[in-house]
């Protein structure tokens, strides 16, 4: 219990005045009577309970006293001094990195903290809470929220985002939101270095919750696979961070979650063990899962995409050397061959030529630079890119084109010069550049190799993979049928989300193998991988640092009191009214 508004204590004067009035009022007027015979009898009757009679006689006085006392109490604003959270402003910083999933068998650290936050939320006493999650970058979940229901909902919705916490970022961010008010910052993490905390502690109390426990961990540090002539070979690196020798089982699954290989590995205490799996079947992606007895399971699974991209680039010898040079810088395996040899190329290899006849075939994607069947004509004017996809990293509006070949019929125009087609895409998907390198200065611009890279990606990406992402990473990716919607599924064919705009791809939070798929298209595999830092656990500590004034540690839960007091005052007023009505003022 405490009092919020001690200044109102002066109102005690009012009841004192009433008490004094009652003290000094005429007590008993003496009256001589012939005999008190009957009076004694009367008094005998009423004096059965003197206390009760006294009460009855002074009802109005006591009611008035009570009324005044309650009024004073209301003005003083009492509250229950519950074990309250310090500080006027409360900030909860929640680490949502993967290492928060360490589990002592009963409960993960993250769940434990969620429960703790629930407990704390009940002790807020009307103070506002800001909840910040820490991942690669800090994120505000709640800002100065006072409603307990909202706070608890936000706590329930907290989830591990598997990223690696970036403390320096978070601290800078925290400094910006800590106001001049006294602030209590709760940091819920597994392990945090004391040095990470800012030195400014005036009016800020840092309460850091660490794990206080060294968890047993064996992590699958690295996993990779390569395709060779012998088949697929996979390598796994397992780090035993415990102080005991351990036995583990490594299982390798293919993209369809089918078990491909299984191997028992013995791990020496505190050492990294390498293990190789040979002669695996060809597949697009491999997932390794480590079965071992430890307390942190998030780092026991890794996926690897197989380098299945076998497409090569063949450049026609008759083309300008710069074309070959440019492609070589993109892919060292680029070959330059004669037009005759070009015709023999099988599979999905990119052919770069000026032979218009290649546009008819559909097996290999073709980049046609110039036309051998038409004569060029001079052109002058502005270059305008119609389809931005190919020029996304390399705007071409500043290049100079001297001459232009006539357009290819039935083709989509991607860029124009003086409203005449400059770059086209045929129905078969081939790209046509209607100029020779000799007729333009494009090759001298940095946009040229980037354009070629874009073309290569666009034409050969059909069976490609999207790569590896950090949990929740945002990255611009280029999918071939970009206007279409891609659905993203996990390796277990569980629907995750739909990708509507490939410009803002956000990787799922949970590490694992995923694929994006559009209607009738092949699946594009990608991996969400845990960051290496999250594979090592360190022991955390719980500590407090800095201080806030004690005044702010009081939770002021006065709402209940005020309501009760006001109801009581009303009740007393009614009672006084009734007593006065029945007995009058004097009695």
């Amino acid at each position, binding site marked *: 219990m405490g009092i919020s508004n001690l200044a109102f204590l002066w109102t005690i004067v009012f009841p004192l005045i009433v008490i004094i009035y009652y003290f000094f009022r*005429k*007590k*008993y*007027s*003496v*009256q*001589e*009577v*012939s*005999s*008190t*015979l*009957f*009076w*004694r*009898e*009367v*008094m005998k*009757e*009423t004096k059965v309970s003197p206390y009760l009679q006294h009460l009855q*006689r002074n009802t109005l006085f006591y009611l008035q006293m009570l009324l005044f006392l309650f009024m004073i109490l209301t003005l003083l604003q009492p509250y229950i001094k519950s074990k309250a959270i310090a500080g006027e402003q409360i900030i909860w910083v929640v680490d949502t990195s993967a290492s928060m999933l360490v589990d002592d068998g009963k409960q993960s650290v993250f769940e434990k903290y969620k429960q703790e936050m629930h407990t704390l939320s009940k002790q807020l006493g009307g103070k506002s809470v800001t909840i910040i999650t820490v991942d690669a970058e800090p994120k505000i979940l709640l800002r100065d929220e006072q409603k307990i229901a909202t706070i608890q909902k936000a706590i329930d919705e907290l989830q591990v985002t598997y990223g690696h916490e970036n403390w320096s970022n978070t601290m800078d961010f925290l400094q910006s939101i800590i106001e001049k008010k006294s602030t209590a910052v709760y940091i819920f993490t597994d392990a945090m270095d004391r040095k990470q905390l800012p030195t400014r502690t005036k009016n800020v109390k840092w309460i850091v919750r660490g794990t206080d426990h060294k968890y047993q961990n064996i992590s699958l540090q690295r996993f990779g696979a390569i395709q060779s002539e012998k088949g697929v070979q996979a390598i796994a690196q397992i780090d035993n961070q415990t102080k005991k020798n351990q036995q583990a089982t490594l299982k390798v699954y293919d993209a369809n979650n089918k078990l491909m290989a299984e191997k028992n590995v013995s791990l020496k205490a505190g050492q990294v063990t390498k293990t190789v799996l040979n002669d695996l079947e060809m597949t697009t992606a491999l997932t390794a899962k480590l079965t071992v007895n430890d307390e942190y399971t998030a780092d026991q699974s890794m996926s690897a995409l197989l380098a299945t991209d076998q497409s090569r680039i063949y450049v026609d010898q008759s083309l300008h050397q710069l074309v070959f040079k440019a492609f070589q810088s993109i892919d060292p395996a680029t070959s330059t061959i004669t037009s005759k040899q070009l015709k023999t190329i099988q599979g999905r290899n990119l052919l770069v030529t000026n032979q218009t006849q290649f546009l008819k075939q559909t097996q290999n994607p073709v980049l046609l630079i110039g036309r051998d069947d038409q004569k060029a004509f001079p052109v002058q004017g502005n270059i305008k890119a119609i389809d931005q996809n190919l020029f996304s990293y390399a705007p071409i509006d500043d290049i100079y084109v001297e001459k232009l070949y006539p357009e290819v019929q039935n083709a989509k125009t991607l860029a124009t010069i003086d409203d005449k087609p400059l770059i086209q895409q045929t129905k078969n998907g081939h790209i046509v550049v209607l100029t020779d390198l000799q007729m333009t200065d494009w090759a001298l611009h940095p946009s040229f190799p980037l354009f070629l890279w874009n073309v290569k990606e666009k034409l050969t990406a059909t069976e490609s993979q999207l790569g590896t992402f950090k949990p929740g990473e945002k990255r611009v990716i280029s999918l071939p049928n970009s206007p279409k919607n891609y659905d993203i599924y996990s390796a277990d064919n569980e629907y995750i989300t739909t990708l509507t705009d490939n410009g803002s791809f956000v990787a799922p939070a949970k590490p694992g193998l995923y694929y994006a798929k559009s209607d009738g298209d092949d699946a594009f595999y990608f991996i969400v991988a845990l960051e290496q830092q999250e594979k090592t656990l360190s022991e955390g500590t719980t500590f407090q640092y800095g201080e806030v004034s004690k005044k702010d540690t009081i939770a002021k839960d006065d709402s209940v009191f005020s309501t009760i007091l006001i109801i009581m005052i009303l009740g007393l007023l009614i009672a006084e009214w009734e007593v006065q009505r029945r*007995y009058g003022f*004097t*009695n």
Partner: protein
Amino acid sequence: MNKAKTALSPEWSSRIRRYSLQSKSRIRGQHKGSHRSKYLGSSLEFSDFREYHPGDDVRQLDWNVLARTEKYFIKRFLDEQEMRVHILLDTTKSMAQREKWKVAKQLTVALGSMVLNKDDHLSFSYVNNTTLPPFRKKGARFQKAFEQAVAKLEKPDTKGNFARNALTVIPKDLTVLIIISDGLEHLEEWQIFFKQLPKLAGDVRFLQLQTAEEMAPSYTGDVQLVDMETKEPLNVSMSQAVLTSYQQMRMAHQKQLEALCHQYGIAFLSIKVNDGIQHILFQQLTKAYWIR
């Protein structure tokens, strides 16, 4: 208290002279009085004739009748006897209430005057702790003396209980005993007292004096009531409930007192002193056939 106050005005005195105390009591004094008695006696009032039987007083023979009819008849006359009236005044301190005391004294004087006027024997006494001789006279000439005797009573200051001690000051063989009191004593005491009275007098009358204040107290607030007799204070917070309770007590006492009087053949009359002596004498007492 001076004489003028106690003494009745001349106008009253003449008015009072017209009244006399009425009583059917058979106990009479030995002296001749002015009251016709039921007994045959030697008064001038004729009663009836009766045949002579041997042994009768021959002096009472009606010679005229004998002369005319030659039959022996005895002529009988009603007796004329004096009444022995005693007035017992309650002089305990409870009577000290100004109005009450005044009316009590006036009543005593008025009734006493009536008695003396009719040449009856009047005695007057009150419970006194001293051995002051009580007034005891016969005849109208003692009226002034009686008035003075009453006027001498300055203030009621008798200590102790009236009902308990009254018996000692009442003479025997009374025709009428008039008790003037406020009746504010315990019923048990009254009962003991009343029980003895029929032996002493043939006609006992209890005149209860009550003040308006007693009948309907007008006190409000917290009042310390001081008993005039015992001087004991009693704190009472007046409220409707207390007053109602008081009224109930008083009425109960009144009824029981009346019942007690009835039980012992005592005439009971309750008088409100605030009505004034005139009203009491000529309305209330006459209405009750106490005086005529």
